């Protein structure tokens, strides 16, 4: 039964790229080791065999040039997908993404467009330590001209990646390393999910959790535990940070009166502050029965040791505790 068809998150990303590349010659992918190696996480495995090395283009280890070449190609009619091996390496491509891709069209008074997708794995949990485990999506979300996507499921990944490829603007597409192997229902046919529409991953009445990426799954687990204690949790996954579907969040908070915002990124300066503030500025403010709670990573670089690594970011227990503090205030 096709409704039962399951893919991993990683396969969903690959399937989307392959389907788009079959129908649109302008779409191609470039990045380090995406050819026979299949990419550091295996996302592009098998693609060079189907599409050849022109369209699955192995690059030198030159992140600034990779991003910049994608900008130039996008401006002149291609629709490049860049695979940036780890999202931490955006630190080498920052100028091209932030000063060029994001601003070109505006600086040029509305001329030209930069339809590029930068796909990149983020997050901790693999023991890769401080320079390979960051969650810097808040940076990109701060930049006018970029769109920012963070899918949490295979289904969302496929549909949102198609939307990103179809979009005429630069889109930063964060894939979470620990989600790559997670499975979910994914239709075979190509489909698109709207950029800017949050998803209610679980309906509930007592408290709203706004969670992104892997935190969606930790929140779902927490919700099961909390339900046993009679707390009904609604979980909202914004899916896209820019544009952000604040309406769906506000509606939920008006209903529940309590909210916990959780992400893996360092809490200080993380996008949770934006979400929390938007809620506080919205009509939901008057419905709040408890202060808005934020959970995020500790203010430390991600350590190597697995116990420390886990402790650096919110876990299921932290979410449970935060919800209880919010509910039993």
């Amino acid at each position, binding site marked *: 039964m096709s409704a039962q068809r399951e893919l991993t998150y990683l396969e969903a990303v690959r399937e989307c790229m392959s389907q788009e590349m079959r129908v649109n010659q302008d779409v*191609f992918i470039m990045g380090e080791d995406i050819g026979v190696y299949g990419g550091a996480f295996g996302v592009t495995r098998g693609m060079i065999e189907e599409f050849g090395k*022109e*369209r699955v283009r192995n*690059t*030198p280890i*030159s*992140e*600034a*040039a*990779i*991003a*910049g*070449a*994608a*900008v*130039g*190609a*996008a*401006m*002149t*009619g*291609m629709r*490049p997908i860049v695979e940036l091996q780890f999202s931490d390496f955006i630190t080498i491509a920052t*100028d*091209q993404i932030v*000063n*060029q891709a994001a601003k*070109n*069209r*505006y*600086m*040029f*008074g*509305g*001329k*030209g*467009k*930069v*339809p590029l997708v930068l796909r990149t794995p983020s997050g901790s949990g693999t023991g890769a330590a401080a320079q390979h485990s960051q969650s810097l999506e808040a940076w990109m979300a701060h930049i*006018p*001209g970029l*769109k920012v996507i963070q899918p949490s499921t295979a289904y969302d990944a496929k549909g949102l990646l198609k939307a990103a490829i179809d979009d*005429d*603007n630069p889109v930063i597409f964060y894939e979470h390393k620990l989600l790559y192997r997670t499975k979910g229902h994914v239709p075979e046919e190509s489909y698109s999910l709207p950029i800017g529409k949050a998803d209610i991953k679980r309906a509930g009445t007592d408290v709203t959790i706004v969670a992104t990426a892997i935190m969606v799954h930790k929140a779902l687990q927490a919700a099961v535990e909390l339900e046993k204690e009679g707390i009904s949790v609604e979980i909202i996954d914004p899916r896209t940070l820019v544009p952000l579907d604040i309406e769906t969040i506000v509606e939920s908070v008006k209903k529940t009166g309590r909210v916990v915002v959780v992400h893996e990124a360092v809490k200080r300066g993380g996008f949770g502050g934006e979400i929390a503030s938007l809620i506080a500025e919205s009509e939901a403010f008057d419905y709040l029965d408890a202060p808005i709670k934020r959970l995020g990573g500790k203010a430390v670089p991600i350590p190597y040791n697995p116990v420390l690594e886990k402790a650096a970011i919110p876990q299921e227990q932290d979410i449970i505790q935060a919800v209880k503090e919010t509910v039993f205030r």
Partner: protein
Amino acid sequence: MVINVSVPSMVTEKKLVELFRQMWVIRFFDEKVDEFFAKGMIHGTTHLCVGQEASAAGAIAVLEDRDKITSTHRGHGHCIAKGAEANRMMAELFGRVTGYCRGKGGSMHIADVEKGNLGANGIVGGGIPIAVGSALTSQMKQLGYVTLCFFGDGASNEGSFHEAMNMAAIWNLPVVFICENNQYGMSGSVKEMVKVANIADRAAAYGIPGAVVDGNDIFAMMNVTHESVERARRGEGPTLIEAKTYRWKGHSKSDAKKYRTREEEMDWRNNRDPIERMKRVLISEGIFSEQDAARIEAEARAEIEDAVKFAEESPMPPIEILEEDVYA
């Protein structure tokens, strides 16, 4: 430096006269801008290419319309040479809605995408990888166009230069890199900031040809660029051209020029003025007369006066456009 008097065979006499006129347009444009900045009439900052007209005009002269360029903060010359209208450029500097960027870009961000100018760039070296990407499109779609990538001597010390050159080299892309070595990156003398005699020597690090050219000799510029562009068009890959030139003015609007001598400036002005040099050649080759030259100069000057008028009479952008153009 000696004047290369071999007039390129790939252009008509008419085109040569047109180029002469273009150089004057570039010069008058920038001198006018200089004047306005000195008077505080223009907001922001600007980088003038007075004295460097030949490298812009000469290199771009050999392009086809479909070819593209990427430009720099010192980009007015490139822009005019690639076919932009002085009035819309001037309007942009005046921050008017009729400007190339609707007043949103200013001097450092003029682009003329339709004409194949992918934009000036406020980031030193920022345009180099973009040119590589444009060349990639040409190669992948087999469009046959070549991308000319301008940057300065100072930019050749940015990582983006290195990464882009290597990428273009290994992929054999149809891009021609033109380093306009005007001897300084802001106050940093190239002698101090680079330990090789020529920036073009860096081509050796990428396995591509490098060429040094007198950037104030428009004919030499045309010849060497033509050769490199045709090479690129034939699929033989990139070239790095270094055009030795000099900027007459300060780096940007306020520059006491303490890092160089007035004598050095005078030497370049008096002995290597690219416009004067072209004029002498065109006259000695019998292409035009001294009077023709004077008439053309006057026409160019008038064109800039018109541009100023156009700019001054143009409306300011309505406040509503502030939030437009962020996304396509």
